[in-house]
């Protein structure tokens, strides 16, 4: 068996707010293998966002160990964490978070701007165009976000997450601002992506229907994992629920 992408052991996260200590994570242990599509669900305040920040190397653990691709990242400096985010993690955020008045290609190039060693402009553009092509957006490369549909915008965001060829895609409520149909399109895109590249995807959502797309569903409550099970029956990719509901 290959090494896990994520290996967490008894991770705790405590925020200190004045005199109060908030235990956001109370001891989470979790291994995620390459190629898994893990969805993490939980109510607001359950600790799923905190878990997501730690997984994304945006925050550090208070206790326990967290290995990303077999490397302990618990005690890295801000700069080292920035480098890991840049190289190994692709973020897809709620809301598209694209830069306005900037073309799709330029938006996709942004992570490459922060890569060290520096990537020459020509190579940046090539990589960005390749990532857009994967998302089927070659003909939209020069469009500004305002000229794209919601689904297209989210696909540009996914292309941006992919552009540096990370080992892990971290999606935080990617469908949060989308209507049901577009949301399903985006989920389908992620499924296809996993199918074609074998990339590991971790998706955080509070919607059970979205969580159902994962190959493994983890539920979290009060800073602890309450259920962690394989999902053997992911939704049929092409079928629309509204049509399925019709007898």
């Amino acid at each position, binding site marked *: 068996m290959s090494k896990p992408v994520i290996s967490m052991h008894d991770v705790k996260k405590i925020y200190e707010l004045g005199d109060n200590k908030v235990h956001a994570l109370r001891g989470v242990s979790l291994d995620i293998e390459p190629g898994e599509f893990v969805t993490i669900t939980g109510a607001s305040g359950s600790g799923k966002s905190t878990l997501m*920040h730690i997984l994304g190397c*945006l*925050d550090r653990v208070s206790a326990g160990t967290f290995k990303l691709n077999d490397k302990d990242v618990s005690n890295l400096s801000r700069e080292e964490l*920035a480098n890991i985010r840049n190289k190994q993690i692709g*973020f897809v*955020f709620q809301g598209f978070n694209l830069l306005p*008045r900037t073309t799709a290609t330029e938006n996709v190039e942004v992570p490459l*701007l*922060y890569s060290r060693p520096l990537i020459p402009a020509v190579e940046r553009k090539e990589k960005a165009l390749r990532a857009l092509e994967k998302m089927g957006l070659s003909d939209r490369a020069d469009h500004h976000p305002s000229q794209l549909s919601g689904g297209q915008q989210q696909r540009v965001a996914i292309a941006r997450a992919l552009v540096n060829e990370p080992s892990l895609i971290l999606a935080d409520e990617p469908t949060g601002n989308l209507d049901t149909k577009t949301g399903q399109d985006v989920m389908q895109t992620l499924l296809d992506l996993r199918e074609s590249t074998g990339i590991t995807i971790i998706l955080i959502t509070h919607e059970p229907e979205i969580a159902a797309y994962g190959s493994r569903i983890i539920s979290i409550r009060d800073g602890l994992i309450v259920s962690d099970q394989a999902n053997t029956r992911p939704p049929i990719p092409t079928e629309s629920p509204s049509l399925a509901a019709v007898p």
Partner: protein
Amino acid sequence: MLTNPHFLNLAIQTLRRNQLQAILAILGVTIGVSALVTSIALGRGAQQAINEQLLAVGANMIVISAGNYQVERSQDSGAAPADHGFIEQNDSITQHLVSIPQQTGSYDLSHLITTAEYNPANTLRLINTHYEDDPNAEHDHPTAAERLGDTMAGLGAAATLTLDDADAILNQLDGVQFVASGVHENARVQQPGEGGRSWFTRLHGTEPDLPEIRRGWTFPHGRFISRSEYNNSAQVMVLGQVVADRLFGRGVSPVGQTLELWNQPFQIIGVVGSSSWVTQPSAGDDQFDAVYVPVTTVHTLLNLSKLNTITATTRSAGATTQVARQITSLLRQRHGITEQMPDDFTVKTQAEQILGDGLPPQVARVVAGNMNTVDNITIEQLSTSLQRANATMMALLAGVAIVSLLVGGIGVTNLLLLSVTQRTREVGLRVAMGARGRDIASQFVLEAVALSLMGGVLGAIAGVIIANSLEGVLQWSTNVSVLSTVLAIVVAALLGVLAGVYPARRAARLDPIGALHHE
């Protein structure tokens, strides 16, 4: 990163999103930079005006005469102690000034000069002229021997200056701008033929560069001696205004006519007058009651090889004393004068010259005995105090410019802080995608620099326009230099860096999680 179009594009977006604030911020920088450019232009203009005035007065002029009458005098007559310690006996100056004329009648040579306008200054010069003059009796002017009596003036050292000395001064001393060598005589010029009018006047053998030295000259008719006429020892003559008026009548151009000098025909090529009301041409003065011929022509006709004087100008008025000192040591070296021996020439600055010209020779001698000090407290002092006044004005203007630049900088900082707040989410996103603190910081600094540069370029243009209008409308002299304009734009860029530092640090220190969830 700073050359990446992506980040420049962001700066433009900031500007578009907050147009009013951006315009105000840029306006602030524009005002500051234009104030800076204008004040530098005014300062430089004033500086230049002061310098030109001083140059026109001749503050930068140095006259080197053959012979050293100071040494000769103190040994010969003992009339006035010429040692430089004399100034310390301040209380006795008046006494000497009064008593000297009675003691030194032997220097009064006015009986030798037939012109009605006897000028004591000329007398002083005569003493300085060398005695190498051709004693050819055919000349209708007194020979050196006649004029100088025992011919011992200057201890026999008066034939000491050569054209080579003049070349050496021009070529070897950096501070020297122009040099004109001269031979000075008294001569009678007359219209050819029977009954032609004649005039006894000063004759200056000189070089084509002399008008560069005499800044206050104009040429109402014709021109000055050309280089080729100088090289060919041409028999050409430029008349002083007084001479032209006396011989040909006021306002009549004598150019093209002929005058006789030493029974030789000289073609008149020009008339020289004064452009300044301060030095109006008058009979008996040394500049306009005079005729000018090439020094080479005088040398040829009189079979001479020595010079009476070398006149030099310095590039800047303030350096006159220093250059005079350099000339002294250069000539001492060229003439092989050992340390104990006195100079065989006399170096005087224009300040000394002016004083000497206006005073009876005996008084001039007393003053000359303390020349170094007199020179220092007159023209150079004047120059310095004018410069100082100008510097004060410049400092004041620069102060205003700096304050307005500061205000402009605060405007830029304010706009950037607004931008950081508006773009908190974007900052969070960039950090998530791997941007380090310094990447974020330099992005905002770049934006500040871009905004300031816009203000800087606009300000530089505005400054040049304002400076030119001040010159046009108020007749203030201004001087816009490319360097100061470029400098002002660079200052604007630096201002941008300073103005961007604080907002950039704030952006770089944003908590990425908080920033990502910022609405």
